[in-house]
């Protein structure tokens, strides 16, 4: 299994600003993912972070709002841009060794936008 850390663990931000969330894995992984979990809701996949190429976004999520970087096989960032109160959620990073292995999750980042 992989151990995944996220920074920050929580933040309170003002409307219109941006926040970058970092995700660090303790081993090299092929696949990294970003999820959003709105209050009391299930997890929704935002995008798959691809190393060396652009992220693959799910329907309803766009690169301008959620730019993602994946500079190497152990690290990824998600930026939540031009935030509004509707962006208040928990953002989770996950990773898998390859296409067929289980995903392991980070502890999440709780974001509150005022």
């Amino acid at each position: 299994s992989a151990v995944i850390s996220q920074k920050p663990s929580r933040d309170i931000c003002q409307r219109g600003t941006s926040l970058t969330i970092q995700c660090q894995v303790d081993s090299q992984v092929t696949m990294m993912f970003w999820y959003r979990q709105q209050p009391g809701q299930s997890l929704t996949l935002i995008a798959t972070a691809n190393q060396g190429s652009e992220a693959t976004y799910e329907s309803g999520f766009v690169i301008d709002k959620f730019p993602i970087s994946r500079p190497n096989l152990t690290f990824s960032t998600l930026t939540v841009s031009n935030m509004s109160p509707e962006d208040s959620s928990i953002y989770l990073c996950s990773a898998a060794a390859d296409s067929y292995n289980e995903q392991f999750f980070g502890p999440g980042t709780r974001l509150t936008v005022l």
Partner: protein
Amino acid sequence: AQTVTQSQPEMSVQEAETVTLSCTYDTSESDYYLFWYKQPPSRQMILVIRQEAYKQQNATENRFSVNFQKAAKSFSLKISDSQLGDAAMYFCAYRSGGLNYGGATNKLIFGTGTLLAVQP
């Protein structure tokens, strides 16, 4: 498109008793995987158990076992000898299996979750 349904928003069990959480799914695929994840108040998602659709034998991990009914598209989780530390939100999740079905993407589809309370 695949869907995952958890019809029990909340469940409660007495410590040391057994509880079963329900999950149904819809898919036209024959090759897929099913998972149960646990999310305690700390928010850390923890993989509890995994089932491959091609396996007839139900998966078991210590006190956790599943009842996988492929024809009925049902995948329930049984927790035996419940402990206080089992209190959490439990999510059922689906993932396509083979490459022909997009398995290479490793995308998980989650149900809405069941909040389990364990009473001392």
